[in-house]
Each structure stands twice: as structure tokens, then as C-alpha cells.
């Protein structure tokens, strides 16, 4: 048999070989920061349960320069997560009205409106 198909193995750094895979990897990496921030919140809840002094200590800790730097990093990735997540919503949840697809921009737009509303409510609740 003269056939000898050549199999190319995918390389471990495949995600560096095209800009869209790099963008994908960054998107996936947002989860690391979302996760770390969740851990921070969980610690906060523990400190809250432990009483006034513990809570104040927690607030001081996350307001410290390292805490702030860490959270800035988290914020950048969290926003990237939001933007990419919203951008994909029309694909996952397309809407049909009267037999015509609702434009994707409208679905994405609705998510941005929701984002703004949720953020406003949280800010107000936090006392802004």
C-alpha cells in the first residue's frame, strides 16, 4: 500500500499562531481573575461574619496598595469578560420576532443596558 497519510500534531503553543486564538486565550484567562476576585469576596464574607473589627481589617487590606493593584488587574479582565460575553449573546440566544431575526446589535445593546442598570443599583446600594 503506497498510502502514507502525514499527520501533523497540534503544537502546544497553537494559540500563539493566530491573533484570533490569542484573543480567545485572553478571554479564557479572564476567568482566573474573576475566580481570584470571588475568593477575595468569600474572604470578605468570612471577615464580615467575624464581626466589626475583622471587617475593618478586611477593608483596610483590600484598600492597601497591593490590594488596589491586584483589583485593578481584576477590573481590566472583568470588563474584558463582560464585553466578550455580551458580544457572544446573540449567537447563543438569537431571537425571532415575526419570522425575522432580531439584529444581534439589539441583543448586545440590551445586555449593555442591563449591565448599566445593575451597576447603578449596586452603586446606589453601596451608598454612592
Amino acid at each position, binding site marked *: 500500500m503506497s498510502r502514507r*497519510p502525514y*499527520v501533523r500534531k*497540534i503544537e502546544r503553543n497553537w494559540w500563539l499562531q*493566530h491573533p484570533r486564538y490569542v484573543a*480567545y486565550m485572553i478571554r479564557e484567562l479572564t476567568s482566573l481573575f474573576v475566580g481570584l476576585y470571588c475568593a477575595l469576596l468569600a474572604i470578605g464574607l468570612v471577615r464580615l461574619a467575624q464581626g466589626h473589627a475583622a471587617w475593618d481589617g478586611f477593608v483596610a487590606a483590600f484598600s492597601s496598595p497591593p490590594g488596589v493593584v491586584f483589583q485593578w488587574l481584576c477590573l481590566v479582565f472583568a470588563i474584558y469578560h463582560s464585553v466578550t460575553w455580551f458580544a457572544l449573546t*446573540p449567537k447563543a440566544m*438569537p431571537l425571532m420576532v415575526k419570522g425575522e431575526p432580531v439584529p444581534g446589535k439589539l441583543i448586545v445593546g440590551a445586555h449593555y443596558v442591563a449591565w448599566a442598570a445593575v451597576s447603578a443599583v449596586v452603586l446606589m446600594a453601596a451608598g454612592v
Partner: protein
Amino acid sequence: MSETITLEVLRYRPETDSEPHFQRYTVPYRDDWVVLDALNHIKDNLDATLSYRWSCHMAVCGSCGMTINNEPKLSCHTFLRDYRGGVIRVEPLDHFPIERDLVIVMDSFMEKLSGVKPWLIPKQEKPLSDGEYLQSPAELNVFHQYTQCINCVLCYAACPQVGLNEDFVGPAALALAHRYNLDSRDGGKGARADVVASNEGIWECTFVGACSQVCPKQVDPAAAIQQTKISASVDWLKDLLTPGAHR
């Protein structure tokens, strides 16, 4: 001297080559030529031993998918004018074994395609004498986009999950299953779920979205897969709550 353009084509002849290597060809530059025209020029005038697939030259038969400058494309729909002044690198599609030169082995795709039962499984059989199944334009619109797949497998070449797991059913096949699941005449979703909603089906997808970016027919397999994930999850929940009542 008239203008030329250089193509770097990946060659692999299993009877003589131990591994693939690039070969350069210089062809005339024409504004309205596509990469396939350049390959045909090579085949007819420079090197008859170059092998590749093609037929319709109008982006509908799906034969001539290749990797062109790192991008999966139909070579009959990729114009030289977009690469003017540069070198065009032509390789076989990624994630498939190379049979020879630009020809890939398609067996796995053909198996995956038939695996998802891509045919109409009517909700209710009726004889031809009863005429057509009625389907409004709106009902047609729901799945029409997913009927446009030409099986060119560019999406398989673009999808890293296909590369990482050769058993992944993959974008085109899953989109086709979705096409039938959405058809108002069809009742076969449960039958297709065995493959579609298996671990090697939709759940291998991490929504990279590359499949949809390279799709020459705007089928958007990524969308089909995410929608199937949602609907499969709903079905799973229903099964959990009322076991045996569905399917």
C-alpha cells in the same frame, strides 16, 4: 515584463517524501484571478504533479478548501489581488492528515457527518398523496442559515478543539444537526442527542468562534452549538425532573 506573484505550496508525496516541504512557484499576476486559478496555472504549465481538489470554481461545491497564509479559505474565492506584492503560502487544511500535497484525508469528517443523523426524521409521517408539509417562511427562516453549509470543512481546520481532540464531532456536523432539530417538520432531536449531546459533541466546544469566522457561507456553527448547549441543558433538566417522560 508583466507582473508575477509567488506561491509557496506545501508538497507531500507519500511515495517519495518523508515529510512535507514547501515548493515555490512564480505565476502571472492577474487582478481577477483567485488562488485556484494560480494553482491551475501551475498544474497546466509548470508542474503537473501538484495535486489538489477542485470543481465548481464558484464557492458552492466545497472541494477546494486550503490554508492560505495561515487562514482556512476556499481557494476559488480567495483573490490574488488581496496578496499583491507578497508571497502566498498555500497549505492543506489543518487538523486533517495529508494524503498528498494539498489533499487531506476526509474520512473522519464523513463519519462524523453521518453520525449526527442529518436527515429529516418527521414528527408525523405522511404519504406523498397528502401533499407537502406546510412550513411558513418564518419557520423556514428559523433554520435556513444552517442549511447553507457546503461541507468545505474550513471550520474543522479553524477549530482548535478539533485539533486537540480528534473525536470531537465538530462544527459543521453539529450545525447540520441543529438545522434539522430546528426544522418545523422534524421530530428527531432526541435521536440525534445521543451523538450531539454526548461528551464528544457540543460539550467539547469552548466557543472559540473561529469556525464562524472562517465559514465562507455565514452558517455560524458556533451559534448553532451554543444554542444546542442551551437546549440540551433544558432537555437534561426536564429529564432530571420527570425521568423518562421525554425522548
